[in-house]
């Protein structure tokens, strides 16, 4: 085990003494949502109903073309929007009913990066992840610093702690944003297209890291992504969305059916089954 992983053990929540090795963490029951321009007008976009469950240490990927409802589903999971019907529960509690800071202690959302208004050091940024645990003016305690330091170590960004955020490369910034989410000590980690600005090496490294974090820290990780092969390689479960409907949910081999993928992504695709039991998608040649 490397140093980062050792430190990571401190960040992870300690398991309850008699907790079963796996239990349902995230439960989505017939959840649906509709966007309208106004309260009275007809909905412009409808999602659902979607149902699935995810356990501790599981990595779930949400796949689908643009405007298929991926981000809406992620917002439902994060409790940012209340489902029109159905329920989204984390550890047995409906997420949209959680008090804001309690929710931030349970769910961390890594969204696409936003522009910083004023320069900020990496450690200051990561310490923001401790906000849900503070009181009143929220002066950070020694424990907060320890947790932030551990979170940085877990993503291999220890050496970056005194750098300015604006000086980081795309991959470095992504790791620091992830570290801030880890500093929240969540049980559910949600990521919205985290691989968007990364090269292929960065994408593989990030997914590998998420897989390890889920295993070591007992997180449930949900990733919205366009990366079909990386999702097949690293996830336990995949939800495939198309035009606001959830077409398939299950293990990668169950979901990756050639006809379904071709219909959803409107491209000539071929699915190969590898010896590991995980599928691989390739673009069919025109000749």
């Amino acid at each position, binding site marked *: 085990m490397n140093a980062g992983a050792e430190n990571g053990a401190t960040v992870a929540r300690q398991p309850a003494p008699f907790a079963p090795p796996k239990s349902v963490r995230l439960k989505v029951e017939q959840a649906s949502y509709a966007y309208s321009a106004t309260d009275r007008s007809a909905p412009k976009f409808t999602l659902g109903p979607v149902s699935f469950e995810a356990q501790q240490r599981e990595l779930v990927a949400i796949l689908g073309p643009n405007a298929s409802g991926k981000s809406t589903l992620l917002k439902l999971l*994060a409790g*940012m929007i209340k489902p029109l019907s159905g329920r989204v529960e984390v550890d047995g509690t409906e997420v949209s009913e959680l008090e*804001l*800071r*309690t*929710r*931030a*202690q349970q*769910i*961390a*959302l890594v*969204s696409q990066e*936003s*522009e*910083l*208004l*004023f*320069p*900020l050091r990496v*450690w*200051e*940024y990561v*310490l*923001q*992840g401790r*906000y*849900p645990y*503070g009181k*009143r*003016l*929220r*002066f*950070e305690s020694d424990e*907060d*610093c320890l947790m*932030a*330091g551990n979170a940085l170590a877990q993503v291999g960004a220890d050496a970056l*702690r005194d750098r300015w955020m604006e000086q980081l490369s795309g991959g470095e910034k992504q790791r620091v944003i992830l570290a801030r989410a880890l500093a*929240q000590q969540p049980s559910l980690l949600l990521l919205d297209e985290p691989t968007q600005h990364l090269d292929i090496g960065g994408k593989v490294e990030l997914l590998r890291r998420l897989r390890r974090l889920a295993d070591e820290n007992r997180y449930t990780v949900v990733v919205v992504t366009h990366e079909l092969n990386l999702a097949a390689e690293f996830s336990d479960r995949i939800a495939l969305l198309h035009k606001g409907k959830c077409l398939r949910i299950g293990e990668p081999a169950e979901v990756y059916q050639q006809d379904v993928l071709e219909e959803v992504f409107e491209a000539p695709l071929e699915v190969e089954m590898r010896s590991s039991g995980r599928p691989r998608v390739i673009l069919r040649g025109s000749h």
Partner: protein
Amino acid sequence: MRPLTPKRILAICGLLATILFVAVVVSLRVGAYPISMRDIVITLFNGAIGRGDTSEFNQVIFGLRLPRIALGILVGASLSTSGAGFQALLRNPLADPYVLGVSSGAALGAMLSLIIAPHTVGAIQLAAFIGAAATIAAVYFLGRRGGQLDSATLLLAGIVAASFLSAIIIFLLTLVNGPGLRSMTFWLMGDLTAPPPTQNVLGWFGFLYFVFAVAAGAMYTTSSDLNLILTGEQEAGHLGVNVTRVKLVVYVAASVLTGLAVSVSGAIGYVGLLVPHVMRMLFGTDYRLLIPTSAIGGAIVIVLADTLGRTIVAPTELPVGAMTALAGAPVFIYLMRRRIR
């Protein structure tokens, strides 16, 4: 990793308070009628123990300079704190009550109250607050493009609002030239020469400082939330910040502070922009430190600017707003160019 502690805030504020004290002493000493340190100490001592003192020093210090300094501290602290608040609220580093037209809105409100209810104590402050709050709300909605707050559009909306409201002020002053309505220079440039409206000078300043303490204190309670809002409103929401509540508190508090300053000193420009930026460069961007340092820094700047304004061309005076604009406008251009690049 060295997080901010209350001890560090106290140390830095203590240092700035010392500088403010020196600025106050300098301001008491210099002017068209210079007073020695010894005479200042004796006069202040006599005043403090209530001993009757009919010397000229007593008249100059208690009748002229001290009220002006007390007003300068209040105005500088209010404008800087509200500038820091507007910068976070609108997520725009160039936001400032003067540039956004909020000061002009407050000035118009204050003027209208002087026309309608000239003898009601406190009415002018309330009217200035309403003027400030209405202007920032209008600028906020005019500054939106496609549902999003756009930095450049917001500033343009502010500049247009400022010139439009200034034109109404000039129009009104030309039409209604009643006594006690104060001059055009006062409303458009700002100065600290307006006498207290009542005989009870201590009570008057007590009222002004109480309003300042409540509004600045309310804003300070949101300072750690503002740190997160600066990295993005949605992200702050994910981290547990009640963004709507925080924005409402800052909106009301910053409007009260602008209204308070403008009601007693007119529209003094650029302090709300200049001071928070200098404090950020010196002490970092954490609002838990930025709000108190901006308040004290603003007080220092106004006291010094006013002292300079009444000494460099003595026996005539330059309004304090002219002094702050001389220093602030180049800084605004520098910040704008740095941002465009």
